[in-house]
């Protein structure tokens, strides 16, 4: 009986591996004008997405369990700065304290992956020797989250439609997340734009189709991959 169940599970896994991947995806449009709308669209159009909103701070903070952390993959585009993103009404969200509320950060409810198509949001060891603290300290974004991908440098709007489209196609095809982000950047960015991704070390080979168990809320270990 056990063998039969294992075989059936194996067959399901193999058949799923051949299909394009669709789980729960959300898109959040920040400041930056029309181009921010188009960038988010160019990612979520690859999926039967669940949420597509003008961004507001509560989606990332006090009601994140109903928005960003209700999705498996949340995608944001707008103006950014280190650990900081701006909403459609130009209000800002400080990502180092986004989990400082009763719903905590992201990952304790559902979310595995977050992408920031915005300048400078994810500093690497080149920008800050203490690059990890603002992601994993108490009240920060990582509360079971697997990976966050973005930029350690400027991210030009000139190419962002193409980058988001390329990335969305790769994630939908089942390729691994941060590796797809870097490949999409390589394929479409200008030469002074550099990607960066932070992740729990056990989740560094995750794809949208297949990923490691959720890290614990208190897990403070973090890995960063960055282009230079």
């Amino acid at each position, binding site marked *: 009986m056990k063998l039969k169940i294992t075989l059936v599970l194996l067959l399901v896994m193999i058949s799923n591996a051949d299909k394009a991947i669709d789980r729960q995806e959300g898109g959040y449009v920040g400041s930056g*004008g029309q181009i921010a709308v188009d960038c988010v669209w160019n990612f979520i159009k690859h999926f039967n997405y669940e949420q597509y909103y*003008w961004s507001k701070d509560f989606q990332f903070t006090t009601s994140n369990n109903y928005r960003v952390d209700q999705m498996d993959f949340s995608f944001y585009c707008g103006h950014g700065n280190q650990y900081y993103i701006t909403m459609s009404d130009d209000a800002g969200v400080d990502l180092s304290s986004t989990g400082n509320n009763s719903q905590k950060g992201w990952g304790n409810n559902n979310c595995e992956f977050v992408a920031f198509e915005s300048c400078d949001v994810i500093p690497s060891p080149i920008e800050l020797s203490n690059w990890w603290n603002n992601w994993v300290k108490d009240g920060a974004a990582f509360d079971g989250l697997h990976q966050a991908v973005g930029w350690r440098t400027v991210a030009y709007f000139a190419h962002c439609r193409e980058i988001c489209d390329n990335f969305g196609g790769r994630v939908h095809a089942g*390729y691994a997340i941060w590796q797809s982000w*870097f*490949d999409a950047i390589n394929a479409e960015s200008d030469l002074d734009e550099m990607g960066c991704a932070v992740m729990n070390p056990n989740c560094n080979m995750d794809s949208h189709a297949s990923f490691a168990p959720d890290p614990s809320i208190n897990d403070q270990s973090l890995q960063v991959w960055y*282009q230079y």
Partner: protein
Amino acid sequence: MKNSYSTRILYLIISVSVFFSCKQRHQPTQNQNEIVVFSPGAVIPSYQDKLLNTYQVSEKSAMNESMVINYLKQVLSLMGEESNFELTNKTQEGDRWFFLNKNDPSASCIVNVKTGDIQVNSGTKNYMTSASTQDLLKKDEAVKIAQRYLQELKYIDLNDKSLVEGHVGGINMGVHDEKNESQVYEKFTTVRYDRKFDSIPVLGHSRFILQLAEKGKLHSIIRQWPIYNETKISKDEEVVPDEAKRAIVQHLMNENKNAKKITVNQVNLVYYESKGMIEPALHVICQIQLPKSKSDTTLMTFPYDLVEPIMKRPRMIYTFMAEPHRDQPAQSDKVDTAQAPKAGDDERKQQ
């Protein structure tokens, strides 16, 4: 004498009213000028003395199925990855074909059959340990071997004047562990080539990127070098620089309605490339200042860029233009907290 005095008063009244009416009429422009400031280095490049073209991707770039297989076999064999990708099993999305390595989701193989693009990455599975990749090449050696790979694959013509060296960099991994220790490891070297037409950089898709691992092993490659047909642009089809500058100011204001200040730092003449088309354009690189929130007027600075067409009737979609969508973002001013948030499938399985 009295007459002369009255005339003077009359002139004064007329002058003052003319001054104020002019001032009022130009008020909006002054406001724009207060918000959008061109730094001394940000001048509109002199494009009117150049012969500019538009480009459309040629049908010669396209690949049929047998060409795709042959090209992929050649590059996968050079990377030692031929047995890891099943080339008879693909998923398709528009003009893009995706091939999977079932043993490594970080490996990827994608072609665009319309533009002839090839993007292959042999994956990071063997490079995830807390150690630097042994014998990574330094800049000059990396450039030499990258050029050798491109020649071996017959991807470049050494007489192609549009090919220019872009950037040599790489990918590193940093680790912060539970013991509060952190370390950085070097993983890959990256060599990039860009495209220029008549010394004007192509801003967009065209490039070769090679990622090298131990001892210069080819770890990933991107070939995006479509063949283009060019069409000359007449001067009548171009906007004059003053008009271009006015349009830049207008678009910067429209796209950043709440900005308190927009500083233009650079205006670069480029050939803007997207979706198989190229047009001459201005890449405008700025910094914008926004208030932190409605209640907090502290200004925060963000990078911003805009691409402004030079042609009066551009065919491409520029950064300030809207792409056609089947859906638009919804307003979300509150959430229904009466309903418990739904956990995902994977969380339910764990419970």
